[in-house]
């Protein structure tokens, strides 16, 4: 077993353990913190696959953005520090069966796909290559989607302000 395989198993064990802890803890704030560690572990897996840029985005957006949003929403509730009530048995069964169903579907796809081993070089996924394609205005460039993204973000910004201001006025 090579060293990178050992690192992979350690990091994925961290992701899985923290993911399970985030599901099973009954303190909601701790669940958010465990989810944060789990997402950092996923960034570690991206780095293991040499996807530095994706790993940076994972930390920037998921760890730095989404988790902050989740923690904010937890603090909007009355009972951020309280222990949640024990889940109903019915819900445990329903959740477990849904999770099992998801696992079966994923494993089914995984075993049915004939993965081909190839010696071709993969696509260049460095930040430099992404930046070049993003700003390229020639035939195969992505400058148009790049500018459209700014409008998408603007629409999201305006939308969330409209909704939130409406809620505040109530």
């Amino acid at each position, binding site marked *: 077993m*090579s*060293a*990178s395989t*050992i*690192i992979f198993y*350690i990091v994925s064990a961290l992701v899985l353990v923290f993911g399970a802890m985030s599901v099973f803890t009954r303190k909601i704030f701790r669940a958010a913190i465990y989810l944060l560690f789990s997402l950092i572990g996923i960034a570690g897996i991206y780095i293991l696959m040499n996807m530095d*840029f994706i790993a*940076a*985005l994972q930390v*920037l*957006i998921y760890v*730095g*953005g*989404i988790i*902050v*949003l989740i923690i*904010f*929403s937890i*603090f*909007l*509730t*009355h009972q*951020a*520090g*309280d222990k949640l009530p024990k889940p109903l048995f019915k819900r445990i069964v329903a959740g477990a069966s849904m999770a099992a169903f998801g696992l079966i579907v994923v494993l089914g796809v995984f075993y049915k796909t004939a993965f081909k081993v190839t010696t071709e070089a993969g696509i260049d996924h460095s*930040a*430099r290559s*992404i*930046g*070049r394609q*993003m*700003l390229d*205005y020639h035939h195969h460039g992505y*400058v148009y989607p*790049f*500018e459209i*993204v*700014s*409008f998408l*973000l*603007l629409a*999201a*910004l*305006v939308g*969330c*302000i409209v909704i*939130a*201001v409406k*809620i*505040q006025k109530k």
Partner: protein
Amino acid sequence: MGSVSILLLMFCGFAFAALAIGLGNKLSLKRYNPEKGEAYECGMETQGTTWVQFHVGYYLFALVFLLFDVEIAFLYPWAVVFKEIGMVAFIEIVFFVLVLFLGLLYAHKKKALSWM
């Protein structure tokens, strides 16, 4: 070789943290004093719990922050190649940021960013 050194660094990092906390816990004197349990050593005494309910208006700050966080994600690959592309890249990013600046102006006008 690279992975071996990362693995070694990982183990050293864990061991260092565990040693520092474990030895500190073992070797230190433990004399209980209620003064030590306070959050601050000077200034006002704290009141109530830290688990207060936030005003709903602060959620907007988080949402606006997330939007501009995503914007930063696009600025990063742009910054890497800015020097080699030059003026065109500059015009493209000015347009990109200008559109988002309109959003910031809108948020300011709707008083979404004013202090509660």
